[in-house]
């Protein structure tokens, strides 16, 4: 067994017995994220919004020319049925004081003159929807009420158009009059190939994978801090570095162990996250597994590995020059913040679309290449994706070499003066 594998054996053996670290790094995301999804689904289903319906019109109006009759009572009944079907608790009221009742999330009022205006050819009927600010249930109920009212409005418009065309003896399509211009949409890839909804879902998944890269940085830097500063404080490192092996091998073993921890954390996070998405989409009858590209996951895993290497290499020279774990954690925090900014913006911004004068300085930050490797692969630019992966690999290696070359046993052993 080579020196490096012996050292790695020690690091992994020690880590595998650190049950608290395993729990927080691996098991928590794996268990917590799906639970989070399930709890979210259950809690959302357990917060039925209450909608109060008030019919102030109490009127039925007929337009004999159009041969239509509208009853405010019937409109209220339709609203009642449709909202109840969507799981809302609907109550009928005659009093607008229900607005003051905090248990009521949404108030729908059919005002006086509604039926008359609805049957008219010159007036517009309105329905008053009173929504509560900052109440999630109210927003959901409002959305549902709007959909029902919109459907009613569309149906009534069609009836009116059909009646008018018949009255005028003109052949007319209610669809053509209601929507004289429609948008027809086709989705294509960036190179013009036809794409379906699965491509868009893959893109969404890739965005989440970019975001997940931010998760790998923290456990990796924490592990390297513990491996060097923690060992210094626990007085175990001095005997280790006095062995006849180059210091670089000891540091490489720690970097490798940190990378393994980071990758396990990533796998755990991604599996947990995919389970969460899978459960959520299952509710809507969508099979997520159909949209998972195995090669994308491989690229993500490799990018994670390089991202961890880069993070550790960036933090290492500063960590070893700190007095203790607290100040080392502050240094690692700076690397984590840089990574978070890049990966969060990578979630919402297409980095490859940025103008060159913005992109060029960003290229100096290795995490930019992590984002581009994934984003470019998803849009079909596989060569460019590979190129950024190689740039990331080169940057990781260069940073790591510089970090390890600038270190010596004295810097590790003797804390700098305060």
């Amino acid at each position, binding site marked *: *067994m080579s*020196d490096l594998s*012996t*050292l790695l*054996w*020690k690091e992994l*053996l*020690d880590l595998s*017995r*650190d049950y608290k670290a395993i729990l927080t790094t691996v098991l928590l995301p794996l268990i917590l994220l799906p639970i989070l999804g399930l709890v979210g689904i259950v809690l959302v289903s357990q917060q039925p919004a209450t909608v109060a319906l008030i019919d102030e019109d109490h009127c039925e109006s007929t337009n004999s020319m159009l041969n239509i009759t509208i009853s405010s009572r019937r409109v209220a009944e339709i609203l009642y049925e449709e909202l109840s079907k969507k799981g809302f608790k609907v109550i009928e009221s005659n009093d607008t004081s229900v607005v003051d009742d905090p248990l009521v999330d949404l108030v729908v009022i059919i005002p006086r003159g509604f039926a008359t205006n609805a049957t008219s050819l010159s007036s517009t009927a309105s329905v008053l929807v009173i929504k509560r600010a900052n109440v999630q249930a109210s927003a959901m109920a409002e959305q549902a009420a709007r959909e029902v009212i919109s459907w009613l409005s569309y149906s009534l418009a069609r009836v009116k158009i059909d009646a008018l065309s018949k009255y005028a003896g003109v052949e007319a399509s209610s669809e053509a009059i209601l929507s004289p211009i429609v948008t027809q949409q086709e989705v294509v890839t960036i190179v013009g190939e036809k794409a379906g909804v699965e491509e868009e879902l893959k893109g969404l998944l890739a965005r989440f994978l970019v975001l997940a890269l931010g998760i790998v940085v923290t456990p990796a830097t924490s592990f390297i801090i513990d491996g060097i500063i923690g060992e210094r404080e*626990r*007085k*175990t490192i*001095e*005997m280790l*570095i*006095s*062995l*006849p*092996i*180059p210091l670089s091998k000891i540091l490489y073993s720690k970097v490798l162990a940190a990378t393994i921890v980071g990758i396990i954390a990533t796998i755990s996070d991604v599996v947990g996250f995919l389970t969460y998405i899978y459960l959520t989409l299952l509710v809507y009858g969508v099979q997520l597994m159909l949209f998972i590209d195995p090669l994308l996951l491989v690229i993500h895993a490799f990018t994670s590995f390089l991202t961890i290497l880069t993070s550790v290499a960036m933090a290492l020279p500063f960590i070893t020059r700190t007095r203790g774990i607290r100040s080392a954690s502050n240094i690692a925090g700076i690397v984590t913040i840089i990574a978070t900014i890049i990966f969060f913006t990578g979630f919402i911004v297409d980095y490859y679309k940025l103008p060159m004068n913005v992109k060029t300085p960003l290229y100096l930050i290795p995490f930019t290449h992590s984002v581009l490797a994934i984003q470019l692969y998803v849009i079909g630019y596989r060569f460019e994706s590979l190129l950024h992966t190689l740039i990331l690999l080169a940057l990781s290696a260069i940073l790591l070499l510089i970090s390890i070359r600038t270190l*010596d*046993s*004295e810097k590790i*052993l*003797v804390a700098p*003066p305060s």
Partner: protein
Amino acid sequence: MVCTVDTIVVEGLVKVYCNRRVVDGVSFRVKSGEIFGLIGPNGAGKTTTLRMITTLVRPNEGRVIINGIDALAKPVEARKFLSYLPEEAEVYPRLTGYEHMLLHAKLKCPNNYREAVDYGVKLSGLRDRLHDRAGEYSKGMKRRLLIAIALMTKPQVAILDEPTSGLDVYASYSVRKVIREYSREAGAAVVISSHNMLEVEHLCDRVAFINNGRIIDLGAPGELMDKYSSANMEEAFIKAIEASTL
């Protein structure tokens, strides 16, 4: 005592931290089979000197030769001949005593690590506790494990910083016995630092008094006691320190 060649040569070692010379021109030689003691008050520069000999800290001036190898030019080569037990060395609490031995033996002598581990098992005297996690050991057991690790590969140079620190009387006695026997059997050069004057008097062939980073006197314990007209090493040490600060 079997004195042959100088296994350790330390010449004019200087170490400066924050404009302070914590080690200021330390020189001494240790022959194979000899036990050399480095005695001094806290902050005298003992640990920094030992760290420079073990190549962990680079001196600003001076040189260290280990078994004929320039330790500053070839630190990894020099470390092949030496073992170092730091004063406050600790164990990995989640590894067993046996796993500690495996780790060090495989890194130090990969070709015959089993032999080294067997010797370490014997030296440690931990018997059935060797397969328990080291975090569960008492302070004395941890120290015995670490001394066994330092000596199990039979190094030609052993640097032991406060080897009996924290041990009870019986354990200290047995550790001293191990060091003495080891030095004689292996013909190894041993450098120890200690606060225990009884230990120094009975264990060391020669002793150096160190204060403010300088060796203020050096000789066999009997010679030093005679020189300072003292009944024991403790008295000789105090008189030497007082004389140096006058």
